[in-house]
């Protein structure tokens, strides 16, 4: 049997979203050797998939891609994508992570990202990177600004026709690749495993995700992105440019029926942003936001909300009770209008659910770090050292610790990197004192 590869780093970052990348860059710039382990095929997390970001309305991929590239090209950072963290444990002062590299069925050292395999592959597969609204192939590059730009083969949808191998100019396709296990040893770790959206399938009153033209907020981000599935906002059921679009707030947050009693913090702001972007691309459309309260908590956010109102976006205070399919592919909402007509209904061409945030990773069985009642990673000094976990030398950053916007995520990632650096310095000082 082959010996398991063992690699030594100063710091291990789990998760290559914006939190993980920022923490990695802040540590690498101080000359620490950093490993970033990402489960996805690309680094960048949710941020690289967004259209524009509140409150500045910067193009998200324009500000995320340079960070991704900076991390990928940093001499002190090694990035491992498409990897499963099997365990993370501490043994004395050393943290040991067991990791499995999933097979891409493409040799990463040979692939030049030319996409010829993708172009020639005959199988169309729903592209989850585009909210399922478009297709990719069974051989594919995850998305156009993915890092790394390395193809992979989705074996679940591959019919082994051999076309990709035939056209590949570098003989990179390898149908026989196997998973590979390796170990990373590090002095410290930052958990930056982010968030997922509350599953729309769990909300029966909102149609369990089966009503045409009821989409999730991340799908709306893709529709609004310039390089999105349709390159413009169209109704997914038939390609019509929608005349009336609604956003439903707290669809999965502050909702005990879904087991999520907390506020997801960013949904009000991202819905306002999406409504503004929509109003820019469809100036004649009626845009309505149904909300319980608007939580515009950050610097400049209240002004952002006021600007949206001034643009003509309608804000209706009322909790939507049910969503049903209406006539001609429209969507019917029943809601209680708290400022007017009591229980009433409205029709829209398309509805976006502002779903809440749940943890991106459950450490149970993988790592002995504790989670809080909301299942996000617990911080033991939430006021004075908010990135510290109950595992020595292990810190947390970004949405892994709780719902958070990008500004707070970046700030927290910097703080986690600083705590990790301080921890390594203290360990080194203690070691020298003993020697």
């Amino acid at each position: 049997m082959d010996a398991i590869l063992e690699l030594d780093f100063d710091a291990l970052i789990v998760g290559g979203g914006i939190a993980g990348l920022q923490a990695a860059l802040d540590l690498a710039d101080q000359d620490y050797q950093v490993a970033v382990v990402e489960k996805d095929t690309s680094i960048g997390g949710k941020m690289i998939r967004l259209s524009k970001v509140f409150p500045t309305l910067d193009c998200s991929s324009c500000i995320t891609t340079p960070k991704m590239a900076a991390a990928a090209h940093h001499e002190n950072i090694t990035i491992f994508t498409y990897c499963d963290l099997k365990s993370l444990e501490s043994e004395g002062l050393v943290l040991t992570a067991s990791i499995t590299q999933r097979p891409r069925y493409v040799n990463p050292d040979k692939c030049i990202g030319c996409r010829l395999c993708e172009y020639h592959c005959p199988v169309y597969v729903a592209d989850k990177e585009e909210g399922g609204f478009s297709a990719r192939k069974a051989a594919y590059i995850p998305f156009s600004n993915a890092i790394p730009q390395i193809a992979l083969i989705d074996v679940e949808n591959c019919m082994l026709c051999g076309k990709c191998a035939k056209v590949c100019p570098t003989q990179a396709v390898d149908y026989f690749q196997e998973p590979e296990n390796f170990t990373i040893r590090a002095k410290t770790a930052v958990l930056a495993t982010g968030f997922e959206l509350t599953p729309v399938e769990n909300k029966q009153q909102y149609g369990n995700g089966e009503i045409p033209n009821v989409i999730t907020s991340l799908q709306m981000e893709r529709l609004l992105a310039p390089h999105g599935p349709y390159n413009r906002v169209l109704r997914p059921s038939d390609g019509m440019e929608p005349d009336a679009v609604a956003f439903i707030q707290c669809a999965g947050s502050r909702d005990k029926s879904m087991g999520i009693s907390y506020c997801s913090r960013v949904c009000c702001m991202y819905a306002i942003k999406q409504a503004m972007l929509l109003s820019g691309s469809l100036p004649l459309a009626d845009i309505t936001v149904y909300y319980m309260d608007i939580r515009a908590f950050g610097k400049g956010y209240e002004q952002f909300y006021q600007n949206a109102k001034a643009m003509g976006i309608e804000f209706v205070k009322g909790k939507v009770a049910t969503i049903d399919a209406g006539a001609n592919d429209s969507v019917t909402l029943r809601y209680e209008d708290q400022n007017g007509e009591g229980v009433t209904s409205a029709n829209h061409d398309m509805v976006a659910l502002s779903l809440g945030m749940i943890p991106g990773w459950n450490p149970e069985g993988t790592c002995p770090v504790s989670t809080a009642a909301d299942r996000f990673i617990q911080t033991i000094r939430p006021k004075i050292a908010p990135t510290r976990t109950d595992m020595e030398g292990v810190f947390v950053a970004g949405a892994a610790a709780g719902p958070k916007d990008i500004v707070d995520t970046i700030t927290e990632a910097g703080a986690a990197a600083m705590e990790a650096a301080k921890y390594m310095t203290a360990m080194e000082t203690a070691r020298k004192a003993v020697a």
Partner: protein
Amino acid sequence: MSQTEKQKKEQKAAMKRLRQERKQKIKDIAATVKTQKEAVKAIKEQLQNHGGTVPQIARETGISADKVLWYIAALKKYGEISEAEKDGGYFRYILSEGSPEEIFNGQPDGSQDTK
């Protein structure tokens, strides 16, 4: 037999074994691909003459409108179809000019190559 010939033969045999292992799955995917090919052909045929909107293509081909849009989004990404002018609340789609491969290699979405 030369070394490369031997390697080639071994590789062929290994592929045969792999195909045998995944026989049922390959059969199912091949059936899906057949349906997809037929759908793409029908959509392209509709676009060949005069272009069309999603509901028009759906009516003519019998493929559901959401699926037509799905194929159009994919074919547009791979450079085979382009969007034309607006027609009521819908856009018309037409076949792209030039070989799809050429269009595809030019990164139709205008994105950066970040490798």
